[in-house]
């Protein structure tokens, strides 16, 4: 499905990195919920003006919502998009789905995992538990069923899914693309092995020895390009560096809920700018305080 990427130095800029994402591509976004989302890359993608994406993955939030709001997404195939009980439904995603401008082919975590595993294992399909009796298959003409050749049991079956590009964010990585992640890895490992192109941003580019000492989670040979982007997951968390920015996320949700000019103003202020400007505006540095004490950590969530 995918060959390895053997260049020794894969460092590049955000702009060049997201040039791997063509209009209409199937795009996997790393991280999960409001943790370790590849937000600097997502913002660069919005600046690039990409359209027609099919985004695939498990449970996501501002990454997908921002891309939908910016008009980059044609089809959404995640298992969840939202801000949990904290900030509620995903405004742009919801508006797109309800207006019909966004096609939502909702998936489920195990089903997405199984499709990626099929690509990773080099088989055209895999059987998967569940799904039968639910309405999810009505959104997926490409799914089917298979009869177990041994037990005769009918099971759901799904085709292999190899994303064109995966965007991942890691706390540290080296020039060759070796990445260290902290758990949970969510689907990042599977995206890395199943996707044709893997573009990674890292909070800090470090020596190979430093990544090796921390433990290589995603090996260089599956990574196509790597970009240093400090606070590159902000406003989502990327521990051990920084926590979730509840204030900024609330500001985003408010703008996205209002839509129109308010959303454009958000884009102008935070997305259509240099990342350095974004970091300064959001005061992302303050989120490193989580590690000082449990009290300071809790304060970030109040």
């Amino acid at each position, binding site marked *: 499905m995918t060959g390895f990427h053997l260049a020794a130095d894969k460092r590049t800029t955000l702009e060049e990195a997201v040039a791997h994402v063509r209009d209409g591509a199937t795009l996997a976004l790393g991280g999960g*919920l409001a943790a370790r989302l590849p937000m600097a890359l997502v913002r660069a993608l919005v600046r690039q003006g990409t359209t027609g994406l099919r985004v695939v993955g498990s449970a996501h939030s501002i990454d997908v919502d921002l891309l939908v709001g910016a008009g980059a997404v044609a089809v959404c195939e*995640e298992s969840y*998009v939202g801000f*949990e009980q904290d900030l509620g439904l995903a405004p742009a995603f919801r508006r797109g789905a309800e207006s019909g401008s966004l096609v939502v082919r*909702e998936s*489920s975590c*195990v089903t997405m995992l199984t499709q990626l595993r099929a690509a990773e294992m080099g088989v055209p399909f895999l059987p998967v*538990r569940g799904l039968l009796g639910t309405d999810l298959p009505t959104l997926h003409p490409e799914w089917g069923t298979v009869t177990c050749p041994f037990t005769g049991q009918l099971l759901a079956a799904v085709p292999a899914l190899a994303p064109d590009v995966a965007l991942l964010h890691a706390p540290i990585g080296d020039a060759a693309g070796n990445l260290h992640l902290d758990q949970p890895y969510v689907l990042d*490992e599977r995206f890395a092995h199943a996707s044709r192109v893997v573009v990674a941003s890292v909070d800090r580019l470090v020596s190979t020895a430093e990544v090796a000492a921390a433990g290589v989670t995603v090996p260089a040979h599956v990574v196509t390009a790597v970009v240093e982007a400090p606070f590159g997951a902000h406003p989502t968390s990327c521990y051990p560096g920084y926590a979730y920015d509840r204030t900024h996320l609330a500001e985003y949700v408010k703008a996205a809920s209002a839509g129109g000019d308010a959303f454009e103003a958000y884009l102008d202020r935070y997305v259509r700018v240099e990342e350095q400007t974004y970091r300064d505006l959001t005061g992302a540095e303050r989120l490193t305080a989580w590690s000082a004490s449990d009290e300071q950590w809790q304060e970030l*969530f109040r």
Partner: protein
Amino acid sequence: MSAQTDGRAGAVRSTDGWTLDEWFVVALARTVADGEVVFHGFASPCAQVAMHVARRTHAPGSLLVEGATYAVNPEPAFVPPTSNDLALHRDAVYRMRFEEFFDAACRGAVDRMFLSGGQIDAYGNTNVTAIGGMPHPKIKLGGGGGGANISATIGALTVWTTRHGSGRTLVETVDFLTDLGHVTPAGTRAELGHTGGGPQWLVTELGVLDYTADGRARLLATFPDVTVAQVEKATGFALAVADDVGTVPEPTPAELAAVRDVDPLGVRRLEFGPSDLARHFGPAA
């Protein structure tokens, strides 16, 4: 309500009162049996807190998989309002990989999952995808996570909602069937080849229900400020009612202390509307 403490953080005297959100979490916690392997999904603060309460009270031998981090038996100092946060890993010796948890759930090694939904029918089928159905939703909900797979295979499900009283949650037919109850339009679990036991408990802000042999929700107990008639009125399907409907057993001081200790930020309260947050019980009420 401001919880009086006896000097130790989170501990309460038995003469204190308690709120509905606390009692609700305790009722959810009691659905966990000791020795079970239990899991909640994301966007589930009440279930999240309840699992820790169970482990700290009557179910110390349960194995808790912290949803969205897949950390095993962590001891968080607080529950943050987002489910994939390092705060939830605290002191966990092991964190499952994503696929490791879901494989275990698919093969039947997980005993219980907590599931909620924007709509829930009599059989415990839930809709977390879209009010008004797809592809033309009236309200697009967040989505079901892994429920469409593992609701089929996990040993037993505790279903919950904090919006029973709205009259729009317990419905005759879900607009979209995301997670599997006992009987779907396509057949029963057995007919569909699903290995899990399906919904065992339904806990709502009005009361506690179980499921009859034919897989339909049955009212067992109400909170003391709720009548059976109110529950029936709020329910969109013909509700089975146990012969001896009682009151939900009161929380013990240890249970209340556990709720308050696990959840100092009160994330459980995010699931309730203002009128339910105002419900107060007990001696100090």
